[in-house]
């Protein structure tokens, strides 16, 4: 019976019934601070982007999934293995590239990779290291000291280190932070290539545009809570239509045209959403003028993940200031 059960677990557990990464109620508290709050995710053979501002709990989530932090509550499985009950088996399946770049500058690129291959215990460390270096376009510089590498090359070297044992899941914590534009694009090209080879990639970032462009699905996290999970296109479609931004000073005028919804306001910029932004821009601008507000600029654009983020999470400080003013106006009317 035992063997039958084991077989079932391997046969179905890895493909359909359990996703490659599954979390259930995954929670981490640091004393009173809830860094990650009841996370429920299922991720399978895709690039999953965890998107959120600094301090929202991305790194804490990754550390729990890579067995570097023990969850306060809940659990997660990687390839069917629990991060709390079977951390060693989890580590066999994954690779982790942390936020701060950690490659040895005094060693050559090749030495850095061979070292990892040896510690992973792969059979032919030298050959495997050569392959990994070639895959990340580092072969020509493999014997130079890492001290002479650019930031982008160091990141690629970290990817090469992470690939030597052919992991099922790759965790990347802010892989493009601090890189120039070309370096970033290159890293994402490599990440996409890895996904195409069947790897599950869990990546965190606070760059919305990158996540939009490269991730299959995105989880938006704020203050430890994942507030939405979907493909970038679906997220954008669900949250807003076209965005009309109007720069003007003063309070929001009343009597908005029909089909227009007010989204929010940041630094004297009002944001509205509408089906036909190009037509609604002038209409709104006239409404502002009628209310006696000087309109300084009007712009129309397609929604981006930034807007999704603002709509879902909001900018609490700004809305409060706005409400405050309206409240005072109400008092004056009395």
């Amino acid at each position, binding site marked *: 019976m035992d063997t039958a059960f084991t077989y079932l677990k391997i046969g179905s557990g890895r493909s359909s019934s359990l996703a490659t990464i599954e979390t259930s109620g995954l929670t981490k508290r640091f004393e009173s601070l809830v860094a990650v709050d009841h996370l429920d995710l299922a991720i399978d053979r895709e690039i999953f982007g965890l998107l959120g501002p600094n301090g929202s709990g991305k790194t804490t989530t990754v550390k729990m999934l*890579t*067995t*570097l932090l*023990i969850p306060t509550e809940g659990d997660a499985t990687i390839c069917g293995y629990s991060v709390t009950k079977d951390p*060693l088996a989890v*580590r*066999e399946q*994954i*690779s*982790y*590239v*942390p*936020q*701060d*770049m*950690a490659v*040895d500058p*005094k*060693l050559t690129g090749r*030495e850095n990779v061979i*070292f*990892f291959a*040896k*510690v*992973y*215990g792969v059979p032919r460390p030298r050959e495997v290291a050569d392959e990994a270096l070639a895959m990340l376009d580092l072969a020509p510089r493999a014997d130079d*000291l890492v001290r002479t590498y650019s930031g982008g090359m160091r990141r690629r070297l970290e990817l090469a280190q992470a690939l030597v*044992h052919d992991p099922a899941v790759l965790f990347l914590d802010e892989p493009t932070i601090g890189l120039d534009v070309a370096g970033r694009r290159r890293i994402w090209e490599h990440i996409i290539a890895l996904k195409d080879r069947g790897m599950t990639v869990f990546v965190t970032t606070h760059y919305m545009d990158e996540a939009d462009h490269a991730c299959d699905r995105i989880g938006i996290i704020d203050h430890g809570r994942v507030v939405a999970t979907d493909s970038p296109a679906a997220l954008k479609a669900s949250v807003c239509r076209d965005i009309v931004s109007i720069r003007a000073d003063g309070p929001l005028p009343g009597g908005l045209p029909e089909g227009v919804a007010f989204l929010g306001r940041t630094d004297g910029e009002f944001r509205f959403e509408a089906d036909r932004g190009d037509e609604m821009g002038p209409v709104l601008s006239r409404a502002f003028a009628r209310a006696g507000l000087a309109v300084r600029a009007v712009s129309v654009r397609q929604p981006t993940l930034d807007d999704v983020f603002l709509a879902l999470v909001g900018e609490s400080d700004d809305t409060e200031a706005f409400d405050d003013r309206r409240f005072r106006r109400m008092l004056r009317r009395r």
Partner: protein
Amino acid sequence: MKRMLYYMERDFRRWLRGRVNVLSTLILPAAWLIFVGLALPIRFTDNYLDFIAPGILVLTMLGASLQGGSLLMFDKVLGYLQKFLALPAPRESILFGKILFITLRGLIQATVILAIAILLGANFLNPALIASIYAVLFIFGILLSSVMATIALKVEDHDSYAAINAMVSMPLFFTSSALMPYDQMPGWLAAIARLNPVSYAIDAIRDLQAGVFPATTLLGLLIGAALVLLVSVMVFRRATV
């Protein structure tokens, strides 16, 4: 076990790349040996070099171990440790590899000092004596580098580590039997010196010089090393969950 050696290999490669480090760690003990060993007018023995050489060998190990702990501190602060902990290799092999590297590096430095001492005329040219001196230094190195690795796990930056290092190293050396025999010390100093692990290592080597097998001192060192290593592993496990 093999994993531990790979971690050690990494440290050796990094150490040998920084040539200045290799040289600078040898200067202080060599200076002691030459200026104190040869130049100091001492009356209680006619061969002060023979007397002080064991102290300088142990000083070399002491310096190497104290400095070595900072390697683990840097691995932690710079994020290497995070990466290593996510590897499937047994996590303790990180700690053991570090302790082994620090100790072996100390032995290499001690070898240079030993060679200089012999060139200066110290009576060490006996294979059995040299082998047993290495054994003593090895146990002493494990003991001290385990202590320093434990401290390194608790310290968050280089300045604090350097402060602790300075606080520990000089008192340990000067309250040991390195510079004078117990009967030449003031009573209070002798009492401290007899408890100091540095004296244990030095006394063991002096006994070996005199052809006596230092059973009790050696046992004391061994027990000390085993205890400290155990504590170190426990602290490491707690620090890395």
